[in-house]
Structures are given as C-alpha cells and as structure tokens.
C-alpha cells in the first residue's frame, strides 16, 4: 500500500483512477477511449448501449501494464451473449498485486430500439489491502446512443452516478464521470471519434481517436487526451475472420508507456 500511496502522491495518480480509465479494451485504449459512441462487443466495458446491435457471442482476455510497472497491472476478461434483441455481457478485471488489490465484476445489458440504444451495467467492486482487510460495494453505469445518420452516432454515458464508495478508505469505487461523444464513419476503412469527458475532481477533457483499416487484416489506431497530453496508439490484427489480436499503448508525458494486449474470439 505504501508503495501505491507514494506513487500516487508522486505522480498525482490515483490507482482507482487508473483502473477507471484504463479498463478499455486494447482497441478502445488505442483510440484514447473516445469510444462512448462506438457500438460493438467491446461496449460491454464501455458504453453498454453499444451492445444492442451485437448478434454473435464474443469472448476476450487481456493484460495492461501501467507505466511499465508490473506491480501496476490489470488483467481483464469478458464475454457477451445476445439473446434475440437483448444482449448480455459479463466483464471482470483485477488490478494490483498481493498487497493491494482491486477487483470488479460487471453484469451488462444493452438493447437497441431502431436508431436509439440503451444499456447499463451493475458492478460489484472489491478492494483488499493486506493488514487492513477488504470491502465491497456496488455501482452502476448507464448509457445511450443515437444514430444521427447512417454514418454518425452520438453516445453518452454516466459512470457511477450514485457515487458508490468504499467507506473504509473514503474513496469512490469508480470515479464519477459523464461522457459525451460522437463517432463518424468516413468509409469502410476510416472511423473518427471525438469525446468530451468530465470526471469528478479533474478538469474537463477532450479525447480524439482515429481508426484506419489499411488492409482487411490490419487496423492502425491513434488518439489523444487533451487533459493529460497523452498520445495513444495501437494495431489490430484480424485473424481467421473471427479472432482478433489488438495491441495498444498510452504515451503519457510523465508516466511514459502503458502497453496492453488482448485476444478476442467471436462465434
């Protein structure tokens, strides 16, 4: 814990914030997380409203090393099951090492009603700190997406609007946040994203992301977060039609690289 506190003070960087911001999957991370208006299976961990149009089952697992420090890593996994028009998903992740651990499991639901989609997720968070014990709490996320034109979607999401917190350490289970963004498809190859986020206790930020499918098998991605001055970048490979492997990293001006990889399979 001490190490984390020292790191937090030194870097102005809360481990809880870290996990709140970086549990996006590698594709979404590479787009700077400007993904609130994107609709695909990865919405299970992003804006659940985007799950509504999913028709296939999907499973993924991945790993992030924050600031290249193995002690600050996150493992994550998820699966998504569409049942007719109702799409359900489960998303889990675990952050930290033996002394300090944060875990979360979320049950997600999304449904589409023509151009409008809605979704929500119920999360159970658990924190455990050696010699301090552990504690759990429940939070919710909810979101909506609206297809403005066939090529343009706007999305918004509220994260932890009730302010669920761990009473013993007096910190939010997940930072309270409002997201509002737009996704525009320029062509089969090119998607551009812009998003405005406000997180409790930090300045408003603007995020931008760009995905370019240079060939069918390979997508190049990049993004930028105005508030922290961080670039994001990544590659996505599509293999055997149904499998994907995605790499991403953040390049923070102080913290440096936070590389990430995940594998996913659709069936």
């Amino acid at each position, binding site marked *: 814990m001490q190490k984390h506190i020292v790191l937090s003070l030194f870097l102005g960087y809360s481990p809880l914030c870290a996990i709140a911001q970086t549990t996006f999957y590698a594709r979404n991370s590479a787009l700077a997380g400007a993904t609130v208006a994107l609709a695909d299976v990865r919405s299970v961990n992003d804006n659940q409203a985007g799950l509504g149009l999913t028709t296939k089952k999907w499973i993924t697992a991945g790993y992030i090393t924050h600031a290249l420090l193995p002690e600050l890593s996150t493992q994550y996994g998820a699966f998504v099951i569409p049942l007719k028009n109702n799409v359900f998903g489960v998303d889990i992740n675990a952050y930290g090492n033996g002394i300090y651990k944060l875990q979360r499991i979320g049950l997600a639901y999304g449904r589409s009603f023509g151009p409008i989609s809605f979704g929500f997720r119920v999360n159970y968070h658990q924190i455990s700190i050696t010699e301090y014990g552990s504690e759990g709490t429940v939070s919710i996320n909810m979101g909506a997406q609206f297809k403005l034109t066939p090529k343009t979607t706007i999305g918004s999401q509220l994260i932890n609007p009730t302010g669920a917190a761990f009473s013993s350490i007096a910190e939010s289970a997940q930072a309270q946040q409002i997201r509002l963004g737009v996704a525009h498809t*320029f062509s089969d*190859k*090119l998607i551009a994203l812009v998003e405005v986020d406000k997180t409790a206790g930090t300045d408003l930020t603007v995020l*931008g992301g*760009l995905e370019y499918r240079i060939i069918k098998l390979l997508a190049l991605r990049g993004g930028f977060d*105005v508030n922290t001055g961080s*670039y994001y970048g990544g590659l996505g490979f599509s293999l055997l039609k149904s499998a994907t492997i995605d790499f991403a990293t953040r390049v923070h*001006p102080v913290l440096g690289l936070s590389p990430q990889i995940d594998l996913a399979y659709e069936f």
Partner: protein
Amino acid sequence: MHLCVAAQTENEIQGIENNIENISESVDYTTLTDQYDYYRKNPISINSATTEELASLHILSPLQIEALFEHIRTAGKLTDLYELQSIEYFDVSTVQQLLPFITLKEDENIERLKRISFLGNNQFITRIQRITEQQKGYAPDGDYVGDPLKIYSRYSYNFKNILSANITAERDAGEAFFTRNNKQGFDFYSAHLAISNIRSIKKIVVGDYEAQFGQGLAFYNGLGFGKSSEVLNISKNAQGIRPFRSANEALFLRGAATTLQFKKIQVTVFGSYQKINAAVRTVSDSTAVDNFVIQSTDLSGFYRTPAEIAKKNTLLQQIVGANAQYQLKKFKVGITGANILFPKQNNTHVDFFETGSPNSQIVAAIDYTLNMGNMYAFGELAYTTQAVAVLNGIVAGLSPKLSISLLHRYFDKNYNALYTNAFAESSKPKNENGLYTGISISPNKRWKWNTYVDVFSFPAPKYLADAPSKGTDILTQVNYAPSRTVNMYARFRNQRKQQNSSGSDVIDYLINNNRDSYRFHIEYKVSDALSMRSRAEVVNFKKEFAKTETGAMLYQDISYKVPFIDVTLDARYALFDVQSYNARIYAFEKDVLYAYSISLLQDEGVRWYILARKTITNGIDVWIRYARFTYADKTTIGNGNELIDGNTRSEVKVQLRLLF
C-alpha cells in the same frame, strides 16, 4: 481588371497570415511578399504548373498538389479556375487564397504581355518612413548617430525568367547616412546577378543569395514555415539557391552559387565570403594578452549607437557547400554538405559552437521525399558538432474528407548547426524531442475543420527553463466559406510550457504556463469595390500559482476601391486591452507593396492605420500609409533610446514604384 485587385489582396493577406502566425515578429517576410507579388504579375499557369512552383506559394499541401495533377491527368485540363473546388482535398477557402496567383492561360500572362519590352522589365522602388513623435535616442543628447528617417531603395531587372539583377539599399532609422561609419551612404547594400534555365544550367547567382535544402536541419536560410492552422503543410519546400532580394541584414550568403541539372541528377555548389555581425567580448587570459571572444552573431541589423556599430562586420565568415539530388519517379533523395569557417583573425576566438571545433563547423545531411498520390513522406537526417538531428513526417489522405499529418523529430541537445530553419517548437532544431499530429476534416467543400496536437520535450535546460521541460501545443480551427465572397473561421489554441518560476526562492524550479487563445475572424466582399474584415481575439495566460493575465482585441478593416480615380484605400481600426506581455496579441496589417507589418498589441488603447495606393499612370504607383497607436493610461511609450514622452506612437510611410 482593377476591380478585382482589392479582393485579390485580401486573399493574399490571408495566405501570408496563415503561414506566418507561428513565427516570431523578427523574421523578414519580404521574401514571401516579393514572391506573391511576382506571381500576381506572372501568375502560374495552373494546367502546366510544376510541383516546385505550386509548393513555393505555401498554400497547397503535397496532397492537394498531387490531386491537382491527377485531376488534370484523368479529367483533362481545367477550363475554369473554380473547377479547382471540385478536386479532391480542395476546399473553397483554399481556392480563394490561390486565385490571385494562378491563371488558365498557357502562355505568358497578361501583365507581362502588356509590359514586357524586348529589353526586359525594370522596377525601381523607393520608400521612406519615420516615427513622427520624438524618441529619446534622437534627442540632441541621444545615442543615435542618425536621424529618424528610414530609407529603402531597390532596383531590379528581369528578362523573362532567364536573367535577373537586383540592388537593394537600406538605412534604418537612427543609422548614419553619408557620415561617420557610413561614408558610403546607406548602412546596408545588397546586390545579385542571376541567370536561370539555360541548358543544364538551372541557376547561377553571383552576389547575395539564399541556400535552402532538405527539411532545414542542416542548411537553410530564408523563409520557412512551421506549425500553422494549415495542419497538412508541415514539410519544407526547400528551393535550393535563390537570389536574395530582401533587406534582412542577416542570414543570407554573399558569393556565388550554381545549380546544374543532368537528367535525374541536380547538383548545387555554393560559396560565400563575408563579414558578419557579432557581439565581441574582451577577456584577458593568463598570458595577459587580450582575447576577443565572439559570443553570438547579431541578427538585428540595427547600427544606430556606438555600441551597435561596434558589432558590425566583426567576424569573417567563409562557407563552402554542395547539394546533390537524385529523382527517381516518386522518390527523391538529396545529400547536403557544408563547411562554415571563421578564419582566425589576430587574437579573436569564436566560442559559439559549444562542442567540436571552435571556429569551424561541418554539417552533413541526407534528405528524402516520397510522393505516392494520397501519401507524402519526407525526412532528413543531419550531423554536425558530434550530434545528430532527425525529422520524419507523413501526410496522408485517409479518405477524401479526412487527411492526417504526422511529424516526429529528435534533435540532440548538442546539435548546433548555424543555418537552420526546421519544424520545431524552439527557434532552432536543438535539444528537442516531439511528435506532431494534424487532422483535417472537410465534410464538404465549404467547411473545413483542422486540428493539430504537438507534444514536445526539451531534454536539457534551455532559455528560461533551468531543467528538462516539456509542453503541448494544440490548435483547432473551423473554417466556413458559405460563398465565394464570404469566409470565416473560429479558432482555439492552447499552449502549455514549463518555465522557471523566477520567484524569490533560493532554488528556481519549473512551473507550468498555460496560454489559451480564442479567435473569430470573418471577411466578406460587399461589392467588387468594397470588402470588410473583422476579428475578435481573446487570450488568457495563466502562470501556475498566479492570477490569469488576459488580453482582448477587436478590429475592423475596410478596403475600398474609389471609382474613377484609381485609388485603393485600406483602413483598420483596432481596440485592444492586454494586461501583460504574456497575453500579447499580434495582428498582421496591410502595408505598402513589399513591406509588411505585424503589430504587437499590449496595454490598453487604439491602433489604426490608413493606406492609400494611387496609380498615377501606367507604370507609376504611389503608396502612402499613416498608422498610429494611442494608449489609454500611458505617459511614456517604449524604453531606452526608443522612449517616447507621450501616449501616441505614429508612423508615416511613403513609397514610389516605377515600372519601365
């Protein structure tokens, strides 16, 4: 013909302003205004233009140039200039900027046909200007050796594009004129004779010239642009050797140069020998002999006081260099090498190269460009003073509506080439590491949304930062051109940098500075004779732990072509309220032909000017300009020798041009 002059100059102003806004006010833009004037008189024939010609306008991105060629290849020659709007990557405001400098005519243009005599074109310009208020340096007991009249004269001769000659003479306000150190008359003279395009001789220049190669890391003098709201124009358009025509008293070469073309290979060699201006310090070493140590070159070009005059022509400089380029279809590669030597004179030491040999410098570089239709890549790797600098960039059209640019640079902290002009946050490519990304989105031809993000760090201490520091620069601008006569944009720019706290603490630590600027700009043509421009700009500068410093400015411009009497009037009225130098606002102003003005607005007051141009008869033009600052709460303006006792600062300028 005359009716469109006003509108054309409007577009030209925007072109210049777009390019120069991120460079400091100390640069001489005469080269650019000169070039624009040349192309206005000799417009580029758009259907047979070369990449070089189009790039030299600094208006089009490599993607646009390539798209234009592609359009001509597939759809045939343009039959109407407005057809440009339909070409991929082109938009209305770009076309508006381009129009004054292009033509559909294949042959010699109108103006030239009208005026070109068998003997070629002669132009003579003379300009005088002065500050009308008394400045301290000019008082009977003042330091300036001359009177406050600035005089500029220039004669140039062109025979088609084969032969050109030029003589420029300038005397800055306060400099001696036919007296004291300037018994020969003007303080500054420049001249050249150039021959171009004769068989394999692409160019020969004798006299004063500029040399520019690659991306500006190794050898580049003259004007070049960096970051601007045109986020795709990030590569340098080095033009090899070019005759020097401006009155910028530093950063040109004096000697001879030639460029030869052998099929796909182009070779340039150049040599220069001149005395340059440098600050000299006298030190005594252990042998008790006085040594003169040259600390820095002096670029201001002002020699008005005995101290300034002492810097003049203090240092002998000898340069030899060469460049070779090989063009293979879409790929071009070049190598550049130069040796800059300061021969030892008596007991003078040169110590402004921090590493390597103290009085000479060898620079070497390799550069490339690769043009693949919707992708353009460029870069340069340079070496000198035992250090490297490298820069690589890409501009790519990912879809017809969205293009991106990327530029990475790494400049070693010891890289210290003398003549550079590279894409960098600092003024020199040194001690910097950065990644720039730009994105340009045009949902249709009337709207354009440009954004860039530049993240950089300075690994070693630098001026005003005693520790490694970093920063970001973000600009976003939306342009809207609802018709051919209306153009507007809104811009936001955020710059964050670290600087010394400069407080009373024992240890000077770094703090974060944040500068936000907002601008709205609109220009429109009311009629063929009347056009207007308006701008509102607000700047907020916040130093960490300090209060926000703000600046605001509003201006209204009017351009009117008075019917029947051949007089064009331009005027501006600007109000400004700027709390500090940190929140300063720059505004580009119209000026007499070939001159340029950028006013720095600080404190509270009014700035206005009026400019009139009258064509007396074909070939004789006169300009008169009067400009004034009036400050609200000041009893004196400026400091030192420039001090004015009063709250106004006015300048009057008169120019005469003869074409024969």
